[in-house]
């Protein structure tokens, strides 16, 4: 990872900066500055706050309202049927057109209406902060939603040519135990039970354990006998 004060860091952000949606696009995402979601003009060192790099991920989405599209389709089809009926009345003796559209024509119409609606629909905007600590190899992303996280992961990996791993309890444990045995210390740890019935094996008295093993053996023997009888 380049340093947050580095020109290379800024160059990488600029390469993947947010570009507004074009008339036909449904989704756009990219980096913007932390203090203004309309500003994607990064300058060297402008994202640096001490050892931390701060910027934001902006995701714009434009979605056609399916109910509106259905209603517009319906109006358009009704209008065409009416036109067809009017044309038939004006030309007596000619074969009455059905006014029905073929599958391809319907698909074309749907596409044209979708594009018209897209042009007239304002996009929704999400902005999520990103805190990057290159020295600790840690990045904090300010959203828990799965789609936002997936977009972030993809864009971050493309921008900085690295991979991201979730900082799970296991991983954080390994890091915090560094110098204290780390992986070895954790690997010796076994799950504990805190509930009533959850005694660990070592807590079960030896006599009880033997009795339990005896019962298991008896059950196994009787079930194999039963299976033998059936055969």
């Amino acid at each position, binding site marked *: *990872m380049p340093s947050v004060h580095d020109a290379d860091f800024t160059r990488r952000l600029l390469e993947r900066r947010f570009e507004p949606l074009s008339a036909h696009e449904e989704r756009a995402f990219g980096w913007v500055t*932390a*203090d203004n979601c309309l500003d994607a003009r990064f300058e060297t060192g402008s994202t640096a*706050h*001490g050892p*931390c790099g*701060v910027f934001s991920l902006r995701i714009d989405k434009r979605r056609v309202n399916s109910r509106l599209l259905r209603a517009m389709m319906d109006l358009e089809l009704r209008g065409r049927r009416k036109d067809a009926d009017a044309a038939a009345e004006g030309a007596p003796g000619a074969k009455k057109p059905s006014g029905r559209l073929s599958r391809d024509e319907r698909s074309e119409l749907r596409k044209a209406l979708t594009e018209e609606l897209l042009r007239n629909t304002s996009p929704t905007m999400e902005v999520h902060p990103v*805190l990057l600590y*290159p020295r600790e*190899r*840690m*990045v*904090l992303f300010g959203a*828990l939603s799965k789609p936002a996280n997936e977009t972030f992961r993809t864009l971050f*990996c493309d921008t*900085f*040519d*690295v*991979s*991201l*791993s*979730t*900082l*799970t*309890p*296991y*991983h*954080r*444990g*390994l890091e*915090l*135990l560094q110098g*204290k*045995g780390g992986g070895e*210390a*954790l690997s*010796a*740890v076994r*799950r*504990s*039970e*805190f*509930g*009533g*019935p*959850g005694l660990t094996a070592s807590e079960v008295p030896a006599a009880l354990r033997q009795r339990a093993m005896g019962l298991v053996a008896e059950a196994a023997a009787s079930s194999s006998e039963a299976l033998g009888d059936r055969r």
Partner: protein
Amino acid sequence: MIRAKDRPVDERGGMDWLGPEFLTWLWWRASVAPEFASADGSSLYVHIDEFLELKGERAAARKTSLRSGMPAASAEGKVALRNGKVVTSARLLFARGEEETSLTLRAEDLDVSGGRPPAPDAAEPEERLASSLAGVRRLYEDLDLCYATFLAVRCSDRWEAEAAALRAWGGAPSEEESPSPTYS
């Protein structure tokens, strides 16, 4: 965590239970000894706030969600614990002197949501941002302090005694379960 592209990693190490175990321990610890000592000599106090969620496995897989009214001291929480459930999510309150930070911690991935660090009192936007960043940093440091304290016990010989104390605490009646006075 950032890593080089050619280094695959096992994200959970087969220890999915570590997070819930930590949060269950933290519930107990916040109830009996809420003070955590930082390396700089200051003290952090941990309190379970208005939300506690417990979940078990197999027969006890149903979720117990407790909201408002001090869930950490509730009978339902302890009953769930006795039935083999562990804490999967909790609203925590970290107090350091006058400063208070609240957050919801999900045990599975130690995901933080609804984090509310102390409000920055600076007037300038730049100072406010710096103050917010310091608050977020402090939140994660405090979380690390709790987790490191847990791991220090968890990976030592002291764990069995600590787990036994937790079980005993879970087995004891909560304030709500204490017998009510009888009238003759």
